[in-house]
């Protein structure tokens, strides 16, 4: 039994490691390419650079104005994250826990927002926003981002809230908790994982969003990171290597944030969210 399970463990680890390579090698290639120049890339795309071109990074950083746009992206995504979490969890609580007839209908209503491609609403949305003077401001993209994040946040959180055993709410009720108290003291703490997951998803989606930001923002000082990354695509040719350098620079903050968060999720989880 124990040798058998050891063998199974071994197989599992081999499988997981091979899969990890499938994930890491292409990304490693991005890093390597970012240290080459375009001419070499076209001749030998997979070779290591003879001399690493770190100047690609300085070029990308200064010419792409990446410092400014990273900050913009950070501001936009953080505000969006917090507000969409607050509004989303409130709505999810109302739909999943509170009892009213239209709960299902409201959920479906929100779901519509997830289903329409952003391309369809882009122009009407832009006209609407520029009428009230919100084009070219960060607020002007934060509001649509929050709204676009809401349906998916609500949808996932509803699932998590529903997973909380009813007895916990009943116990809280007996202890004299109000409906608001149940939200802050029972629902929120127990759906911690849900928040991590949805938070990560919405943060990442907004961090990478291009089309809306591209159309809404014209001012150099307000551009977000994905918009700045397109600067390396010219009308007749593309500076691949410098673009990859910029992409690596753009990835670093996400990866750092992600690694900090992701480990917390599992740690919090394995202790057993439901101790009751």
């Amino acid at each position: 039994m124990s040798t058998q399970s050891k063998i199974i463990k071994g197989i599992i680890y081999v499988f997981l490691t091979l899969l990890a390579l499938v994930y890491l090698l292409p990304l490693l290639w991005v890093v390597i390419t970012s240290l080459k120049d375009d001419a070499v890339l076209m001749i030998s795309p997979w070779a290591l650079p003879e001399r690493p071109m770190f100047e690609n990074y300085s070029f990308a950083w200064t010419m792409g104005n990446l410092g400014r746009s990273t900050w913009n992206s950070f501001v936009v995504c953080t505000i969006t994250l917090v507000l969409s979490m607050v509004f989303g969890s409130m709505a999810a609580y109302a739909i999943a826990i509170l009892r009213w007839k239209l709960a299902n209908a409201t959920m479906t209503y929100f779901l519509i927002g997830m289903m329409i491609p952003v391309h369809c609403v882009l122009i009407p949305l832009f006209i609407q926003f520029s009428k009230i003077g919100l084009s070219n401001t960060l607020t002007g993209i934060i509001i649509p981002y929050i709204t676009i994040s809401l349906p998916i946040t609500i949808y996932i959180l509803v699932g998590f809230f529903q997973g909380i055993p009813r007895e916990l709410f009943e116990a809280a009720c007996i202890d004299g908790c109000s409906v608001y108290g149940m939200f802050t003291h029972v629902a929120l703490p127990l759906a911690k994982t849900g928040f991590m997951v949805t938070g990560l998803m919405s943060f990442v989606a907004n961090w990478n969003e291009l089309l809306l930001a591209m159309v809404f923002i014209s001012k150099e000082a307000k551009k977000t990171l994905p918009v700045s990354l397109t600067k390396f695509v010219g009308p007749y040719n593309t500076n691949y290597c410098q673009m990859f350098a910029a992409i690596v620079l753009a990835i670093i903050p996400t990866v750092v944030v992600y690694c900090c968060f992701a480990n917390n999720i599992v740690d919090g989880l394995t202790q057993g969210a439901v101790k009751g």
Partner: protein
Amino acid sequence: MKKKLLSVILTAAMTASLLMGCGGSADTSAPSSDTSASTEEKADTADTADTAASGEVQEITWMFWDDLNATEDLISKGYAEVIERFNKDYEGQYHVTPITTNLEEYYTKLNALVAAGETPDVFICSPGANMNDYALTGVAAKLDDYLADGWKDTFTSDAVFSGSTYPDGIYAVPLNIAAACVFYNTEMFEAAGAEVPKTFTELLDTCQKLQDAGYTPITISAGTAWCLSMVAGYLCDRNGLVLDDVKEHKTDWMDEKVINAGLQIQELSKYFQKTAAGDDNDIATAAFYNGEAAILIQGSWAIGQINGSCAEGFAEKVGVFAFPAVEGGNPDANRVIAKSDSLCMSATTKCPEAAVALMKYFTDDTAQKYTAEVGGKIPVTSVEYDTSVAPPELAYVMDVFRNASSTFGFYNESLADTEAGSTFDNCFVEIFKGTDPATALQPIQDYYEMNVW
């Protein structure tokens, strides 16, 4: 009772927000209608009056499809210099702010800005189907009055305006011209004993010689649609197809001339690099710059790249010739595909003076000299430039261009609309992949039957 109340409130909230929306929609639905235009005009005049009184700096915007800092394109760099020069010379009077996107999202963004009533004062636009959307709809302003003060006389000829001339006037100013030519590696030609071909048969012959000598004769990208379409356009024209006849339905896409062009593409494709189907433009052109292939059919913007990023000494090896004639086809084999970057001015600009001043900066001697000497494109004005500084290929391209009897646009930009252009491109990709031309051309024929004729 309470339940009812709630649902009433919810429905009320819903309808209220909808009504709010609809109320807002009343004035958004017609962004280019007369009322909104006139109110804007009123506001504009008030604005200009204010500015004149207070001596404030007049802000204008200029929209372009490449980033001015991160670009390596020499023409884009030239534009950046023009902007800088303009802002310096007009300091305290006018100031221009560039709005840049990449080419892919350019028209999406421009259309959104137009729809929201924030049209940039000056914007770049490709003549043809794209420009129609701005010139025929009153988004762009007619420029004849501004050109009449002697500005127009600085241009080489009226022909440079042909792409931007509409029945009621001129709607855009060209900045430079790129001509589609055949670039070739003289070293390889010599080694293979190949001659510069004058006719299509000779071209096939030359390719055969190059192939026998062990070279890849032609590098081309079928993955980037306009590259193949450029060759297709040349072949159609050399076979004697007249696009206006197609438009007026005097002939159609099943015309023998088009079918012939298709068959010729298939003959020629034997000499393309083997990966032509999968290579995009960057990869295909790199094969020529790296000395892997002998012939590159490309716009003259390639000159900038050859001199900017290729290995030392490569530029001297490059020759240029005009696309060969087709025997028994169009007797006039000197027509050249040309494309110009052109500037439009917004019809609702607050300050036409500033916009025109900016456009004049793009066509002044300094800018045009740069176009020729550094950018490697053909200048639109009769500026004197230093031929010894200019890249050697420019002289060849200029020869081809001077010998041209007339010019015509890229086919995918000259058809009835952009969708027709894409359909045309796709048809020729199909032909290239080996489909019988008559079958492959059916989609464009259908498209014209449904939407044009």
